[in-house]
């Protein structure tokens, strides 16, 4: 028996100080909610509820919640980029949203002022990359945030099953040249993300740095422009959503039958490891990633 406190095998401890537990929802802001809704439905998402006071729709499949925000103030960001939808927010499930928010702000996060109307839920948020927001949600066990702010669409199954076992695998963030280390330090500080080794990559687009959430449920990939892409002056942004599936081949076949197109070139095409959908509406693409171990 070894005395308590020794670390003979140097097992790294993975702190999870916010009690992070997966992604509660991802939000797109758009001035074209119908067109985006159509794209999402081909991907298997179903519209299930409307916001009580704003032009906001909740889509769902399996464990994934996806919000389409066309509320005029929030959709302005999309109007800025030629009406292309933008990933405007990600919500993390945490143990205690208020405590998590307070901790992040004490460590240097920019708080986002709440715009909740009367009887609506105040969800604390901080500014994320490129004008996006990171919400912190703790109401995901006994009841859900959507019960308060959204009205279910009558006659619609509130829990549509996921196509091909799809779930949120993670997000891809585009960063400016030389900024990966800054963002890594940021996500380590705020959320206890950790960098996965260089040889540990998922899917068919292995560039950049990959971070893992401390709950182990999702990834966060940082991609800088290549050095020769000097003309790439695009601002930092959340570029796309990664969807995990136990069987990429089955998922690709199912999605193709629904009208989803995939990138199919000699260098980039659907494989067992992953696949990338063709961009719709100028900015919306999904990356499928093979998820092992369930």
């Amino acid at each position, binding site marked *: 028996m070894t005395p308590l406190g020794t670390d003979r095998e140097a097992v790294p401890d993975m702190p999870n100080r916010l009690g992070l537990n997966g992604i509660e929802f991802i939000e797109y802001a758009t001035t074209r909610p119908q067109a985006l809704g159509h794209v999402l439905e081909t991907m298997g998402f179903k519209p299930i509820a409307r916001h009580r006071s704003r032009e906001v729709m909740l889509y769902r499949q399996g464990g994934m919640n996806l919000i389409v925000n066309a509320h005029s103030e929030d959709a302005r960001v999309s109007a800025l980029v030629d009406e292309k939808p933008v990933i405007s927010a990600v919500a993390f499930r945490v143990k205690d949203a208020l405590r998590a928010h307070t901790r992040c702000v004490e460590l240097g996060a920019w708080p986002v002022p709440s715009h909740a109307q009367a009887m609506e839920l105040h969800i604390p948020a901080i500014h994320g990359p490129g004008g996006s927001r990171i919400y912190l949600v703790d109401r995901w066990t006994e009841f859900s945030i959507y019960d308060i702010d959204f009205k279910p669409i009558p006659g619609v199954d509130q829990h549509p099953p996921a196509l091909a076992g799809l779930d949120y695998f993670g997000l891809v963030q585009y960063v400016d040249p030389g900024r990966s280390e*800054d963002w890594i*330090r940021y996500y380590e500080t705020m959320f206890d993300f950790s960098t996965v080794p260089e040889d540990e990559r998922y899917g068919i687009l292995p560039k950049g740095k990959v971070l893992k959430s401390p709950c182990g449920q999702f990834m966060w990939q940082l991609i800088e422009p290549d050095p020769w892409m000097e003309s790439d002056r695009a601002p930092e942004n959340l570029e796309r959503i990664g969807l995990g599936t136990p069987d990429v081949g089955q998922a690709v076949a199912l999605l193709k039958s629904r009208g989803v197109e995939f990138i199919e070139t000699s260098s980039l095409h659907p494989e067992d490891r992953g696949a990338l959908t063709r961009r719709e509406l100028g900015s919306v693409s999904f990356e499928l990633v093979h998820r092992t171990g369930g």
Partner: protein
Amino acid sequence: MTMFESYSLDSRTLAGPLEARLAAIRQAGFGKVMLDARDVVSHPGGVAGAVAALRASGLRPAGLQTLHDFEGLSGPLHQYKVEVAKGMLQTCAQLGAPRLLVSASTLPHASTDLAQLAADLHKLAMLAVPLGLQVAYKALSWGQSVRGFLDAWDVVSDANCSNLGLGLDSFHMFANGDSLDDLIELEPERIFQVQLSDFMGELPEPTAPGQTTRSLRVFPGQGAHSEQLADLVLRLARLGYTGDYSLDVSNDDYAQLPAEHVAAQARQSAGWLNDDVLHRAAPLPHWTRIQANTR
């Protein structure tokens, strides 16, 4: 024609409206300007006016200065300073400047605990990340506890953020009696800012930012400490520092002279640094690059 792309002149070194100063800096051949926040917010058109003037000048911003007395405070004072810092970071981002310069606290009641100073600068660096900014922290010879550049380096190293680095200021290094041998301790890629100025006569006791020093600061190569300055930049070059040099000369006499006159002095100084001290290679004429590209 710009000969001094990697040299900048501080906006506060010159007098007059911002547009006239920027024009004088550009005319003198500098590629960049280090902006003083007062020059930015006092523009008749506000920050937006200053941003437009900067864009029109053709100069690139080297940074925004100076956040004072930020670290080591607690309670409401800390909160107040965080709000000040956020305002300056937003101005910095509006200008498209790459970094905010922070000088060490001079407040007698500021903490001297290294861990707290580092935690406060860590917070500042985190505030800067979503805006795409860096933070450069520099020692002041009359600072509360961070007086030498090694003191500042300890804080920066302890905070350990890639967007937090060191600012060096020759005036304070010499006034504090810092040993240039200690430069070897630094990591060159973590030096974000080097400000240079010379001084007429002996340096004053590092006690307070008194008026006595104000008319005696001059451009590098024009005062009594040129040899020391040459030693400093050569050691930095040997260390592997490849960043910019900023000429920072607050001088009451210069405040009474036309901007062009002072900018011409600055140009001479940059020439001395570039040609006589660093012996930097002159860039090839433009036409050689055009030919190379068409081959």
